[in-house]
């Protein structure tokens, strides 16, 4: 509890270990997830080393190929998520401004179309337009996952207590100052939740990138299906699952670290020193 009252400087200088353990006890699920994933991954590796693989299986499941495909999946997810952030956050902010509100329903419904079209169809549409390649897959993923970030940005900005903005404006903040200093920081938790959703969607959906020559773990799974190698399918799918859960875990940590102080709600007004 000493930590709660320590000033910034002291907190940095004093044992970070105490801080970390404090953080972990408050966020137990953040410890359980990686432990489970690690166990799952080890089990998978143990399984593979104990099974006699035939030629096709060896070709699909050797470490070089698998690690390349994992990396491709990460790249696809990262690139599409960055694009989503660049598009959806500014758009989401803009759509909450009074002058632009009229078009908000129209924009929201077109963003929903992106998610309503089956992902498969979306990849084919972008293939027809852009041909084969990494960026075709990235754009398809971007369109597919733009809605959660757009919607959460809007909700995040709109849910900011009107009284807080009123107080800020009433004290002489300009509209831009109120946006940057009040609305956005207070919207961060909700926006981050949307980003996390988009990230997980992108990792999962990146398995379809092989359809347009975008690579990724989808190739492992698909070749397993085509060649009737069940083990290959299972290993591919399991790897995607571990990857998605792992990235979600990283996002969960980011979410907690980036949440503004004062919104963390760990302290309650139980102060008795000054009873009013």
């Amino acid at each position, binding site marked *: 509890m000493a930590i709660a*009252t320590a*000033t*910034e400087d002291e907190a940095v200088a004093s044992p970070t270990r105490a801080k970390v353990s404090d953080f972990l006890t408050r966020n137990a699920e953040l410890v359980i997830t990686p432990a489970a994933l690690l166990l799952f991954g080890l089990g998978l590796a143990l399984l593979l080393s104990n099974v006699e693989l035939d030629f096709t299986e060896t070709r699909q499941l050797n470490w070089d190929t698998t690690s390349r495909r994992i990396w491709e999946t990460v790249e696809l997810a990262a690139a599409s998520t960055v694009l989503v952030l660049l598009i959806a956050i500014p758009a989401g902010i803009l759509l909450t401004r009074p002058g632009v509100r009229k078009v908000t329903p129209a924009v929201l419904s077109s963003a929903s179309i992106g998610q309503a079209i089956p992902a498969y169809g979306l990849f084919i549409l972008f293939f027809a337009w852009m041909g084969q390649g990494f960026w075709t897959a990235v754009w398809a993923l971007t369109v597919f996952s733009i809605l959660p970030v757009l919607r959460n940005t809007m909700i995040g900005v709109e849910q900011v*207590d009107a*009284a*807080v*903005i*009123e*107080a*800020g*404006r*009433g*004290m*002489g*903040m*300009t509209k831009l*100052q109120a946006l940057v*200093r*009040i609305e956005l*920081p*207070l919207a961060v938790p909700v926006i981050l939740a949307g980003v996390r959703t988009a990230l997980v969607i992108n990792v999962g959906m990146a398995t379809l990138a092989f359809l347009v020559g975008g690579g990724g773990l989808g190739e492992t799974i698909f070749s397993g299906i085509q060649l009737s190698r069940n083990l290959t399918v299972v290993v591919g799918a399991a790897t995607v699952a571990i990857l998605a859960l792992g990235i979600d875990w990283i996002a969960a940590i980011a979410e907690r670290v980036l949440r*503004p*102080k*004062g*919104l963390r*709600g760990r*302290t*309650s*007004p139980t*102060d008795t*020193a*000054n*009873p*009013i």
Partner: protein
Amino acid sequence: MAEPDQTTEESGGGDAGGPDVVAAGAGTAHGSDEIMIELQEVTKRYPGSNEDAIESLTLQVPKGEILVLVGPSGCGKSTALRLINRMIEPTSGHIIFDGEDVTTVDADHLRRRIGYVIQQIGLFPHRTIADNIATVPRLSGWDKQRTDARVDELLETVGMDPSMYRDRYPNELSGGQAQRIGVARALGADPLVMLMDEPFGAIDPITRDRLQNEFLRLQQELRKTIVFVTHDIDEAIKMGDRIAILGERSRIAQFDTPERILAAPANDFVEDFIGSGATLQGLSLERVRDVQLNTDYPVVRHDVGVTEAQRVLETSSEDWLLVLDDDDRPARWVTLDHLDRTDKRLIENGRKVTALAEPEDTLRDALEEMLLSNAGATVAIDGRGKYHGVIELETLMNVLQRMRREAKAHYARHAEPDTDDTSVDA
């Protein structure tokens, strides 16, 4: 209730009524005659509406005074307040601020010169208490050292230990603490003017009372010009140097000091609004030291003997005799019955005196004591407890009649054509 004849908006008829009423109220300043805030026929009509939300509002607030805007919900009192710092832009009319027409100046800069407190407080939850209080100093470009010093000074002003609260976050504060920080934040860059929109509205009654008293004490030192909005007439009477009672579309039904509004409501609307408690409220504005006490009451020192006591009581028209102790402090109430029945010493006979009022007590306190007392009277004492006189129901009724008479006389004077320059302080 006598109907005082005075100019009112309702009876004055039509639009011309508004400014007249204001003229009647203004001019009789407690403090300086310098006008800090002035609204000149300010009107607000929202786009798409064919009715004014605020209809030609004209107001003057003298420097260093608290003006309370009070009225039923929906009368536009908050809108009127928000017109002053142009959170709402007026459709027509002028806003004069310390002699300067600010109707069209940059609103953001104007607001940095005006403290603003709202009911929901609106502390920034993601910023520390210190950062919250430093909002306006930082917007105004103060350097860090000056800002930090100011933050600590303000925390002390509102009675919160800087070292304890500086680095906390708003979610660690109770409602009353948060409201104090709200006030400290509004005082950030030492504005001349504060606008307060139901600042104590969301706080429990006991804490509210405490915060009101604290705030009034603070105002004694700070002497800010304050416009205060509330829907609670009791709060208005307590806080206001002057009160503007607003009716529909913020038309001023009466604009005057609390004393005169209570003593002489301008019309039925005001009378309804201040309610049946107005008389009692009026009593709470007068203090015991200011009233004519009844000093003819039968009183004896305890050592005069029973026969003398009997004689005094028999020659008076009262039923009770007040017995004082060695130090002239009121001790016992006795009746002839008491004196006949026992041969106890005077100091032990009868009933103990419980209803006491000191010079600083209000007449309302005195009345409450009186209702609980055996003799139906409150004994006024001086600061050291010595007998001063007796307050009876009649005493209070005389005070109420005097208040009404004075208010009537005031309005009679102002009903005459030449209403300028009347610095009457009743």
